[in-house]
């Protein structure tokens, strides 16, 4: 029953060193920002890397002209997170047609066995006269997180890279954080459920929520640090067939969607009038929403996937 597992920090360090090829770069034309998830690392001049200039245009630059700053050699600590990064997500409501692929991918990759998914697609309607729309909602990774403020034992914590995580080895299961979170994204492990041999044996790290899950503690969306670490996008982002999600780094002012397209964050938010959920509460979310205006999808189409009382497809009992 007890599944205390130590986080294996050593092997993770290698991951970080391999994966964290990013930073402010110097190129002949001036200061350029590396594309967050671009491949790099080779010094042969024939290779190019895609970079984004400060005004948001993408360009190809010889890899040899690029030098990497901020390559942290210090041990990666899941409590502190990546240095010099600030992760953000943009959710384009105009594109969401309730395909629910984000949800099933998240459920699958986090081995969610409970009844409540960590990402939900709400059927929203501001008022009777306005048009309804679909709103994927996950942990907002708030910069003033209500959940962190109230946690009595520092089990839920905010990292320097903006990610809010839970240390399931420390959580005492008081559920105060669930009461405090205005976005209802936190999920409790009411019982012990079987997640499969591999997961049950896995070494626990707060970096990979739910692997394995622990009875009597809280879980929620972790912004997939285990994917970021590999230089990949969070599961929901890459699973979405409609490119609803973009994920990236605020310091680099860049977000990338599931198809690999990059956008300049500040421009995107300005042009599309991006907003955050319940801004008035002062929680300062890291997830931005683009309003469902000029919609490219039909709301009704999503209704066929709408399951009011279900968000996790339970694996069939063998």
């Amino acid at each position, binding site marked *: 029953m007890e599944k205390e597992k130590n986080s294996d920090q050593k092997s993770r360090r290698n991951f970080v060193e391999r994966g964290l090829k990013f930073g402010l770069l110097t190129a002949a034309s001036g200061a350029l920002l590396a594309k967050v998830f671009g491949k790099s690392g080779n010094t042969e001049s024939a290779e190019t890397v895609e970079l984004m200039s400060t005004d948001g245009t993408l360009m190809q630059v010889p890899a040899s002209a690029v030098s990497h700053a901020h390559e942290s050699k210090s041990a990666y600590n899941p409590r502190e997170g990546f240095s010099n990064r600030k992760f953000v997500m943009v959710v384009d409501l105009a594109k969401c047609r309730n395909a629910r692929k984000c949800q099933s991918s998240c459920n699958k990759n986090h081995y969610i066995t409970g009844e409540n998914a960590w990402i939900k697609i709400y059927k*929203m309607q501001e008022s009777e006269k306005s048009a309804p729309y679909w709103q994927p909602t996950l942990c907002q990774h708030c910069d003033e997180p209500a959940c962190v403020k109230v946690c009595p034992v520092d089990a839920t914590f905010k990292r320097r890279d903006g990610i809010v995580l839970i240390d399931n080895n*420390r959580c005492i299961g008081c559920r105060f954080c669930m009461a405090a979170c205005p976005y209802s994204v936190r999920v409790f492990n*009411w*019982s012990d459920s079987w997640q499969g041999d591999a997961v049950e044996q896995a070494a626990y790290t707060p970096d990979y929520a739910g692997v394995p899950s622990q009875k009597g503690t809280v879980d929620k969306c972790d912004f997939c640090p285990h994917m970021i670490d590999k230089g990949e996008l969070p599961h929901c982002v890459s699973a979405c067939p409609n490119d609803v999600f973009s994920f990236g780094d605020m310091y680099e002012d860049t977000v990338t969607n599931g198809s690999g397209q990059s956008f300049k964050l500040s421009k995107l938010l300005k042009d599309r009038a991006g907003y955050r959920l319940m801004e008035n509460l002062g929680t300062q979310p890291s997830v931005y929403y683009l309003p469902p205006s000029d919609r490219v999808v039909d709301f009704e189409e999503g209704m066929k996937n709408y399951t009011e*009382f279900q968000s996790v497809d339970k694996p069939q009992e063998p």
Partner: protein
Amino acid sequence: MNTAYEKMINDLAPKKFGWKGNAWVAFLVVVILAGMYSYVQQLKSGLVITGMRDYALWGIYISNFVFFVAVSLVGSLITAILRLSGVHWSTPLTRIAEIIAVAAIIMAGITIIIDMGRPDRLLNLFLHGRLQSPILWDVIVITTYLVISLLLLYYPLLPDFSILKRHADHQGWLSKWYDRLSLNWSGNEKQVRIHAISLQALSIMIIPVAFAIHTVTAWLFETTYRPGWDSTNFGPYFIAGAFVAGSGAVVVVMFVLRKLYSLEDYITDDHFDKMGKVLVLLCLLYLYFNINEYLIPTYKSTKEEAMHLQSLFKGEYAVLFWTVIIGGLILPVIILLFRKGRKPLPLFLVALAVVLGAWWKRYLIVIPTLSHPFLPIEGVPQSWHHYAPTLMEWSITAATLASALLIITLLVRFLPIVPIYETAEERGLTETSQPTCS
């Protein structure tokens, strides 16, 4: 031989239980054992045995916890506030109030542990405690309150123990315990002085701590954004409600004990009358805070608040809500305004209604709010939309209530229910001198 004095000791000394007492203890033990069985199931399978789920994330464990904290406040009211304000009529009730306070605060602590998903990690609160969290404040003030309450129960008992030591001579072991617990009290001038000063100091100390425990308990809710909890009124509202619940509990216990032990000479009809007045005053105060708590949000009716209030006023919780408000607050006020209503029996019945109402009031504070989060409840099984406590949850909760009653019962068995020494002082009775009044 000083007969009045002897008679008083005889009247007030703790007595062995008869069959009624034993049956009562047996009943409580059975309830507690049933609850323990359920709790073992909870430890094995997790909180899944309760009716709580991700939306109704707190249930009757928490509302019961708030109830216990509330009841425990009466110790500070009767022993400290009344003592300091120079009110003497309440002296015979101080012991009862303090016993109730100690029982309630102990059970409050245990109840909160029962609610934890990982009680095995209780120590994390001390190893990794973070002062930003209201839960830590609660841990600190509740333990402080427990310690001061125990001392406030114990100090006035010192002279009583020394009296009982002599009185209980025929029951060897008991007398020995009284002797030990009396800490060599001889009643000399120095002891009396230190005793008086300590009691005074404790009485002063307990008041801010008492206010703190219940204010912090209110803050557990108030510090969240949720409609129904997001109120600046919660602190005083909780404290007023706590005094109501606690005074009600004192009236109930004093009525029962007076009847069982024939204490009519010590707990008189006048005491009931006065407690009735205290209760009605507190109920009016509580009513005032209730009006603030419900009327103003109703007047504004923001979308979220309106939804919450609707469910209380005419929705799902309406029957419970109005029963509690009318039966547990308004009717008691009306009845207690009349002298006849403050006679022992009617007052007892009213107090019983007040205590029951107080328990359910906590339910209404904790649960309905959770079913109205900001985002719609979606993607969870239909049964998660509404909270209904399970049988196991009820049995665990019943066991905590039974435990509180058991603590009270056992303390009543071994401690004088009415302080002997203080009563003797007030009546001018001493071991050697002649009574100055009878």
